[in-house]
């Protein structure tokens, strides 16, 4: 009888382990679904909102919903994929006064501290580098686990002049606002 119980205990433990191991694996999300993810921004020109985005980016993200505070992110954005307004505006944006894509082809965000605020809310602190200038950045984010995917949404505001975006007479913020709201929508797949 004793043997039987020991056997049962062993069986249930191994079942528990077997059941647990795949679920721990499934909870690790680290592949960015680029097709479903979006980095967009809004710039204000003389009172009109102009929406744009960066269509090319890549990076490494580790996220486990059981331990959100251990999440890490390192995103690389290809500035040449800038998309807003007409052709002339896009060409200007790649030029020296703005992003200067020849010298600085990418922007980069590296997370530093991730605080778990509960209720699927996070506060992510990190460094954002644009045009060779690294500035600390804190953003609020939310996440939703949807089966084999986790969806992140974050919005924050940048000041373009902090990064030297819009040099020369473009520094005039009455024509192009300094404040640039940015939205990041990331869809991560489990590996």
């Amino acid at each position, binding site marked *: 009888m004793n043997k039987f119980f020991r056997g049962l205990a062993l069986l249930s433990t191994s079942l528990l382990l077997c059941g647990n191991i795949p679920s721990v694996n499934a909870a690790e999300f680290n592949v960015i679904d680029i097709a479903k993810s979006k980095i967009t921004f809004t710039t204000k*020109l003389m009172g*009109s909102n102009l929406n744009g985005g960066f269509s090319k980016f890549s990076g490494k993200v580790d996220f486990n919903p059981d331990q959100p505070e251990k999440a890490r992110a390192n995103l690389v954005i290809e500035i040449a994929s800038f998309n807003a307004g007409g052709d002339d505006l896009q060409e200007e944006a790649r030029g020296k006064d703005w992003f200067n894509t020849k010298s600085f082809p990418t922007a980069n965000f590296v997370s530093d501290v991730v605080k778990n605020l509960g209720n699927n809310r996070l506060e992510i602190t990190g460094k954002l580098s644009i045009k060779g200038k690294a500035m600390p950045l804190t953003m609020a984010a939310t996440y939703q686990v949807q089966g084999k995917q986790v969806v992140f949404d974050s919005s924050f505001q940048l000041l373009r002049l902090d990064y030297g975006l819009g040099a020369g*007479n473009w520094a005039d913020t009455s024509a*192009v606002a300094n404040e640039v709201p940015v939205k990041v929508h990331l869809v991560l797949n489990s590996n």
Partner: protein
Amino acid sequence: MEQTRYTIPAILIHWVMAALIIVVWTIGTLAVDMPLGPDRIVSFSWHKWIGITILFLVLLRIVWRLTHPAPELNIVMPKWQERTMIFTHWALYILMFSIPVVGWLMSSAHGYTVNYFGLFELPDLVSKDKVLAEQLEDLHGLLADGLMILVGLHVLAALKHQFIDKDGLLSRMSFHKSSNKKGAV
């Protein structure tokens, strides 16, 4: 010859629109050759703000004109001149309405939302479409050139009546009574 004047609101709206049309055309003509920069953005913003004002005023003016007919024209002129006058006036109204509308359409097609003095955004009339935007841009410029030719004709005709015919026609659209009265001398 004493002429019956248009109503004061009609006279006021005529001269305000005349001034705005000259200003909006000048800004548009200068800005189109500017390189992309804050100056171009500021210029086109003013161009659009004034253009939208003109659109609003012309609608107001059409309503006023429909409810307050033009005073009777008691000047005898050749039939062809009268026909040209009627055609020009119709064309001026059509252009004053259609040019800002085409401009608004063109701005929407370019992907730039039109706003009014930075106070509020106007709806985009069409979605972004580069080919359509370029066609509308050509049309906008063409109609604007047409308007300026008709404005020139309109002004020359008024000056001819004032200084050659001396028939007091201009007093119909003047704030003060005519000092150009044939019968007074």
